[in-house]
């Protein structure tokens, strides 16, 4: 078998590939907490009273610079967010840079400056790194690993019936910004990627309602909220019911989506979190998120139910119902 784009697209093909080619050939897959088999955003290692959370993310995006960010901002944010949605305060990052020979040094400097900016914003230090230069046509690839500490690790499987589902801002911004940049599609107001760290949002909710009332979290990257909600439904064994009209979508993303025939629900966010919260604390959680500068468009979009287990049911704008399925293939490849 040869590796095709589909093997990295996040769908069933990728899942089978990870299971058969990777998981089955690694024998030690767990360090006492959440391990490789869970395929969560990160893994945990119990340390004393707390849990060390460990994650890594490889970043490859075309174009390297896009409205709202670049691969540097993406790599630090992506790893910080993988830690954050596990309920972990980011402690430190490590970076591996793989560069194609001939890459402009000033451009690399700009990418590093973006990484630095996000690292100071969180704040999380970048304390280790590695650099390789190759003569293959790969552009710039960045792998970022991160560790964090969680007093109460949160998986993406912990939803309970009745819980509220919150999304921290407008969806589909990153994916749609990338495709518009690639296809040179211009709108009156440019679509900007939402790329950015969400640790502040997670922390604000934990401070407001307590970690124990956040039952599940996920950052809806590849495959957008369609993929994230389906994974959360499948892993918890419960259903998710959401209302289309409550899902925040910016007018320009909506317009681009209609023009391109791509649903904003199916494309990546890079600065959002989908949070499942005990319903009695949902309003407080929402209020806490909305007070954050990157959370003002947050909304409660639905709830966890026992009907339709492992499925996501969407109530459409006109009140009809259908399943929200994970996207077919990859509507926008190489976004993160």
């Amino acid at each position, binding site marked *: 078998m040869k590796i095709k784009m589909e093997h990295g697209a996040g769908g069933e093909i990728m899942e089978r590939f990870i299971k058969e080619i990777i998981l089955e050939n690694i024998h030690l897959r767990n360090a006492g907490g959440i391990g490789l088999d869970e395929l969560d955003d990160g893994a945990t290692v119990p340390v004393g009273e707390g849990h060390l959370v460990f994650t890594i993310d490889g970043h490859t995006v075309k174009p390297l610079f896009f409205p709202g960010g670049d691969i540097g901002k993406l790599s630090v944010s992506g790893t910080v967010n993988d830690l954050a949605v596990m309920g972990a305060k980011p402690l430190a990052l490590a970076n591996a840079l793989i560069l194609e020979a001939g890459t402009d040094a000033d451009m690399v400097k700009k990418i590093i400056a973006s990484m630095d900016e996000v690292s100071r914003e969180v704040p999380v230090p970048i304390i280790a790194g590695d650099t390789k230069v190759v003569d293959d046509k790969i552009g710039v690839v960045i792998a970022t690993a991160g560790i964090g500490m969680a007093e109460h690790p949160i998986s993406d499987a912990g939803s309970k019936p009745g819980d509220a589902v919150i999304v921290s801002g407008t969806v589909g911004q990153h994916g749609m910004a990338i495709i518009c940049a690639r296809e040179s599609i211009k709108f*009156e107001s440019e679509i900007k990627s939402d790329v950015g760290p969400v640790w502040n949002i997670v922390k604000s909710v934990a401070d407001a309602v307590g970690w124990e009332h956040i039952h599940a979290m996920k950052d809806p990257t590849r495959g957008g909220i369609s993929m994230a909600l389906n994974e959360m439904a499948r892993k918890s064994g419960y259903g998710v019911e959401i209302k289309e009209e409550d899902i925040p979508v910016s007018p320009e993303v909506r317009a681009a989506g209609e023009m391109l025939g791509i649903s904003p629900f199916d494309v990546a966010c890079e600065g959002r979190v989908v949070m499942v919260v005990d319903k009695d604390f949902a309003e407080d959680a929402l209020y806490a998120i909305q007070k954050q500068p990157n959370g003002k468009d947050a909304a409660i979009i639905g709830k966890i139910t026992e009907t339709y287990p492992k499925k996501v049911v969407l109530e459409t704008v006109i009140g*009809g*119902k*259908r399943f929200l399925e994970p996207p*077919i293939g990859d509507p926008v490849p190489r976004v993160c």
Partner: protein
Amino acid sequence: MRTNDILSAYRSRDIARRILQSIKKEAEKLSRPVKFMHVCGTHEDTVTRGGIRSLLPNNVSIVAGPGCPVCITPVEDIVKMMEIMRLAKESGEKITLTTFGDMYRIPTPRGSFADMRAQGHDVRIVYSIFDAYKISLKEKNLVVHFSPGFETTTAPTAGILESVENDGVENFKIYSVHRLTPPAVEALIKAGTSFDGLIDPGHVSTIIGVRGWEYITRKYGVPQVVAGFEPVDMLAAIYTLLKMINDGEVDIKNEYTRVVKYQGNTAAQEAIYKFFRVSDAKWRALGIIPNSGLELREKYNWIDIRSRYNPPTPSLPDLEKGCICGAVLRGYALPTECKLFGKVCTPETPVGPCMVSYEGTCHIFYKYGALI
């Protein structure tokens, strides 16, 4: 963004709810369950994406007819096009084949155009025939556009043929598998598919007008409504059909007046019939339908690739065993009634054509997770 403002009324929850109330009232008056058919992939998209079936009373159902030109393109024509490419290659002529992204992946017993590319043939995906024509102007080799589509797509084909004729472009040819929609509806009625009302496709009607559909009502007593593509358009069409049935009215109405005119686009009609003549034609899984195909007129035969290469057409089965695309295209069944649907047959591993095309009912059901 302005388009969104104009269309907001057609997506309004309040307006949709009010029409739904009226639909329920009319449905209560029905003496028997009714079935409405549409013949358009985009209508199916609106119905399934909006979850419209889940909103309708139990005695009102919507079925999809043959509304997907790529799905009904005969296996024989796809295979013949492949044979043409092989013949050309053997005789030392390089052909660039262009077609649409869904056509490219349609399976046949002898493979797909995608398989041809894997074997080293030059097959390219285009978004319109115009893109194909531009390739022929830029590159010297022979460009053949494999051209499926109903009236809506035939109009731009005719537009390009106008340029081919005027500029005397020698290296651009087409393989027409264009089809006409009303004759297919007529054939379904004659073959015994029964439905109580027809929702006419807005795009096709933009070209042929309300006029192009009138004879279906006159000859077969079927009420019709020409409809647009927003959720409210579909609901309004359903309501209008119910009202006509309850009032005993047999007529054709136009809900999509913001686009469709009674006489249609007469300039487009003239262009189409300048280049094409009507012929009997095969539809995949539906058989030969009288007067439903468009072939280039003799005068323009030189633009038809078959005037240069004409290998014999093999006789092949339309569908794989177990695939019910035929019943889906006739409006007899919904994809969820198929044993293969979503299990063996998915957009990644399609068995039948209706799972491949963006306009195919099975693809749409899978993509939007239809809840019946």
